[in-house]
């Protein structure tokens, strides 16, 4: 009944210097789901979003619904027809954020692509988001960047895993 082990690291990037973005390109189409594990901080003096750009698409083809708790209150919101696709908030200059983002059925060419992400930023916020890319193309590249042209800090790590369903 079983098909064996899966949850395979595809690629890892550890920044040796600050970078405005990190890209995984030529992503293998051999898996069912992708999981990004991000552990990063960013430059500047204010908290930023972490955005994803799929297959280089910078058009207003994304939307999202989020939910957050800051230790005192909970909030939720949505955005439609946006080019800024959030997988996490906040990323901060001095505190490291951890994001685990799931891209389901990323290689099919029939459905729009959806992601489901959790972000835990120490001493700040817990944030979850469901996002949509209105495109049926298979995902072949993922670019991640802080909002407002900030840089990811040196030492930030990004690992992309593939999960293959039986």
């Amino acid at each position: 009944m079983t098909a064996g082990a899966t949850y395979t690291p595809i690629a890892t990037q550890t920044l040796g210097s600050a970078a405005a973005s990190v890209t995984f390109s030529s992503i293998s189409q051999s898996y069912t789901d992708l999981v990004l594990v991000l552990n990063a901080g960013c430059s500047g003096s204010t908290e930023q979003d972490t955005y994803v750009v799929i297959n280089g698409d910078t058009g207003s083809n994304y939307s999202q619904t989020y939910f957050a708790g800051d230790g005192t209150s909970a909030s939720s919101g949505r955005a439609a027809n946006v080019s800024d696709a959030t997988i996490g908030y906040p990323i901060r200059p001095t505190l490291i954020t951890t994001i685990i983002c799931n891209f389901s059925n990323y290689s099919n060419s029939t459905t729009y692509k959806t992601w489901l992400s959790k972000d835990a930023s120490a001493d700040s916020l817990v944030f979850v988001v469901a996002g949509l890319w209105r495109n049926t193309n298979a995902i072949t590249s993922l670019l991640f960047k802080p909002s407002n042209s900030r840089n990811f800090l040196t030492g930030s790590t990004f690992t992309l895993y593939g999960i293959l369903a039986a």
Partner: protein
Amino acid sequence: MGITKMSKVGFTSASYLKSDSFLVGNAAFSPSSYESITTTTLGSSTSSFTFSSIPATYTHLQIRCFAQVVRNTFGIASGNIQFNSDTGSNYSIHNVTGIGGTPYASGSANTTSVVTADGMYGTTTGGTFGISIIDILDYANTSKYKTVRTFAGTDFNGTLGGYGGFVGLTSGNWRNTNAITSITFSSSDGNLNTYSSFALYGIKG
């Protein structure tokens, strides 16, 4: 004399790494605790789907769903999960949910399923599929009630019928000490649609 057993006992971790494929013709030893058990993609619309005869050889289960419900008006649909075909009032749940406006929390006791709030599934009207990641810890244990947690979300670019997308977390409890051998998925909002996929994974302890 044929080799009947291989063991890493006696190797240091460094030398073991150098030796993990030393038998000519053998695949490299690649340990992993996360295994794919089975997957189903629905070929037609159906009221429910069941994983049956689940092996008890793992410590935890994870189900990754990418699914849609046939539903008019709204872009999200709730999910229902039952174990071992138990349709009695032996479940309880708590949800915390974001729907784009005021977040809310809810809970119910003595339910007939684990109800994963509103947005485990996308809908045919919204045109999208929802993601849900469901963890069932210690599912084969016969001494404890079973606990399930879900992380689910759907977005469909705006609102339909006055409601937008959904993202939320659910905890559920099944008041039964039997090992879980089957899991049934359905939705009180409509049939599960074609192309919905349910992937079952086992995690070793």
